[in-house]
């Protein structure tokens, strides 16, 4: 039991470090926290493109991919080591994450050779930005309940409907998309998977304003949008199977709230803020709470180390990863709430005159989004219960009937 690299890992880490030292930008003190990636302007985009091109040139754009498409066939643990080293430098928002993390692997698995040649290299070099269009207003936790339609018309599919929660749609060039091509088939059987040119006529993108006024997500409306059949990934009606590949890759890439779980900030605040004329940290109730947060955050960190150990051995981490998001999500919200309450009545002031408390308030407003994105508490508990613990699945009322007959709202009697 040790935290050290194996000799092979150490060698790889040294290689990564050397390249980064030569090419990356150090952190700055004024780097702002942006938990949901809400502040992406043109300047930022240019920085993203430049940095991605540089990584591609150096062979660090997409480590785990096959060498024939420009990857380095790195092991999962090598990928983690790369990310650890990368995080020590200043990085632009990860606008290529969806493309490289979800779209690319799906095309590599299910696409034709032609499709791979068409999209993969440009994706890797950062010339093209990709987004994912799966969720719909009435299909959240129940993703396969989506209703946006695709109807074949000659060599094109005519697409109508609405997608939601699309990160980066406003600056994306391409999107991956699941559509209902047959409403008479049972739910999962009527879906087909496409790649869509986000600049196509008939696509309208509207940003969603979040409760913290940030705009990390979009609604995307499709009105008679034409997608060539050549952009179909996989067979007609086989869209759910293709989508599973995307989702498996998504689950692995959504994190647990990062810096928001930082108990050091809270302990510092408890040393500065007073209760009854003494530093709050001397108060036993505050100490007990700090200890609870500290213990949980460490538990999450070390659980991550156990996952890395599995990766290091070449194992694929499974649905256990849901633990981090379930526990971490609630914890960081509790932690932010406690940070606000520590200020007493001053916790209602939300501005620059109150910087320590504002930090917690900003997090308190950002975290509910992190908790919901990538699965509600109920979805995560079901994943753990069914896939980790092997408990029986839910009773399903939507199996074996045509999708159009599945109830989607209260009876209108």
């Amino acid at each position, binding site marked *: 039991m040790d935290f050290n690299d194996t000799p092979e890992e150490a060698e790889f880490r040294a290689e990564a470090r050397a390249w980064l030292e030569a090419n990356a930008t150090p952190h700055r003190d004024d780097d702002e926290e942006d938990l949901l990636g809400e502040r992406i302007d043109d300047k930022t985009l240019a920085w993203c493109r430049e940095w991605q091109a540089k990584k591609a040139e150096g062979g660090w754009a997409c480590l785990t991919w096959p060498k024939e498409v420009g990857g380095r066939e790195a092991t999962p643990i090598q990928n983690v080591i790369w990310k650890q080293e990368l995080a020590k430098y200043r990085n632009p928002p990860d606008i290529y994450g969806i493309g490289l993390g979800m779209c690319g692997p799906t095309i590599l698995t299910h696409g034709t050779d032609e499709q791979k040649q068409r999209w993969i290299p440009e994706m890797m070099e950062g010339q093209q930005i990709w987004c994912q269009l799966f969720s719909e207003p009435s299909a959240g936790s129940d993703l396969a309940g989506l209703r946006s339609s695709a109807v074949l018309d000659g060599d094109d599919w005519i697409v109508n409907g609405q997608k939601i929660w699309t990160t980066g749609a406003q600056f994306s060039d391409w999107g991956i998309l699941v559509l209902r091509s047959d409403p008479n088939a049972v739910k999962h059987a009527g879906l087909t998977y496409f790649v869509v040119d986000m600049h196509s006529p008939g696509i309208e993108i509207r940003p969603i304003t979040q409760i913290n006024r940030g705009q990390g997500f979009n609604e995307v409306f499709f009105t008679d949008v034409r997608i060539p059949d050549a952009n179909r990934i996989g067979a007609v009606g086989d869209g759910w199977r293709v989508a599973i590949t995307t989702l498996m890759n998504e689950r692995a890439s959504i994190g647990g709230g990062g810096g928001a779980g930082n108990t050091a900030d809270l302990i510092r605040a408890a040393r500065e803020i007073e209760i009854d004329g003494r530093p709050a940290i001397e108060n036993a109730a505050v100490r007990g709470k700090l200890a609870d947060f500290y213990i949980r955050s460490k538990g999450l960190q070390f659980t991550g180390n156990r996952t890395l150990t599995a990766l290091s051995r070449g194992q694929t981490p499974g649905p256990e990863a849901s633990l981090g998001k379930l526990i971490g999500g609630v914890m960081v919200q509790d932690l932010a709430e406690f940070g606000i309450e520590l200020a007493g009545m001053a*916790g209602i002031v939300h501005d620059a005159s109150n910087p320590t408390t504002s930090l917690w308030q900003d997090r308190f407003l950002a975290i509910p989004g992190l908790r919901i994105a990538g699965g509600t508490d109920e979805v995560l508990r079901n994943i753990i219960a069914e896939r980790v613990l092997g408990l029986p699945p839910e009773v399903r009322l*939507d199996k074996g009937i045509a999708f159009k007959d599945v109830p989607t709202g209260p009876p209108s009697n």
Partner: protein
Amino acid sequence: MNFDFSEDQKLLQQITRDYLAENAGLAVCREVLESDAPYSTALWKGAAELGWLGTTIPEEYGGAGFGHLELAVIAEEIGRALAPIPFSSSVVVATEAVLRFGSDAQKKKYLPKLASGEWIGTLAATEATGQNGLEAAKTSLSGGSLSGTKIPVADGDIANFAIVSTAEGDLALVDLDGSGVTREALGSFDPSRSVARIVFDGAPAEALEKGRGQISHLLDRAAVPVAFEQLGGATRAFEITREFTLGRYAFGRPVASFQGIKHRLADLWCEIELARSNAYYGAWALSNDDPELAIAACLARVSTSESFDLAAREMIQLHGGVGYTWEYDCHLFYRRAKWLSLALGSPASWKDRLIDRVEARQKSA
């Protein structure tokens, strides 16, 4: 045993609710929240016309002459509507201070203007970040002149006068539009309620005649109606969430048919009902001037603060993605809940106060 409001009080509740439904849908709260306006002057005017602003003010001073049970009833409805008006500061705290601790002259000067809504009053007690005793004020009143800084002051930017706690233990009355007062509106966690910093530099002021040493008692008296405002907010958040989960379908059935969701709603309902019971006890103690108020106020304050906070949090989570959008109303509740749970002092400080008092009673028993 009649641990409930009377028929008349329930009628008052219905009238209040109907008026607010018509004139203060959540869009009214949102309008203030999204604009630079610190509160809804139209709703404030309406509330004045209906007599709410003078609920507990005797008729001789232009009020409705009702008791605290009626005030509780109205406060709950104000809470349900997330009404963006300085009700808690002016109608609850400032009015109670003058009514309870003012001289005849002070009452004559302030109460009619409070009842008519012409003047907004507030309490300025806190001076620093943290949970410091309200007795720790440094602001000083001497020779009719007040100096010191209060931050934050709820509704301090829009109030015409303030009740200011002092180092001497007084509750000083100060005209905020007068000389020696500088104030600055601050960003608020709930922009539909406002907050300010006020600096007093030799501002003319006088102590409330019977106010010395009464800050704690004033807070007890104020905590109960505010608890009803919180209870109203919690209840409304719960109702909207319940409706949403019944109408939202997933996997061919209402989300509310999944045990995970059902049990979360059941747990939340239990918390709100317990808070309601504690708030009722507070209302009984307040309206009867019972010594139990010292304990009952803590129970009501903590229970309703924690359950409104919880209800707002669960509201977002149980709405799923849309609950996190600016467009949906969940965040209005999330903000207001936290604002109200801190504006009279944090739940933690009220718990501490509760144990002081329970201990004192056990010792004396």
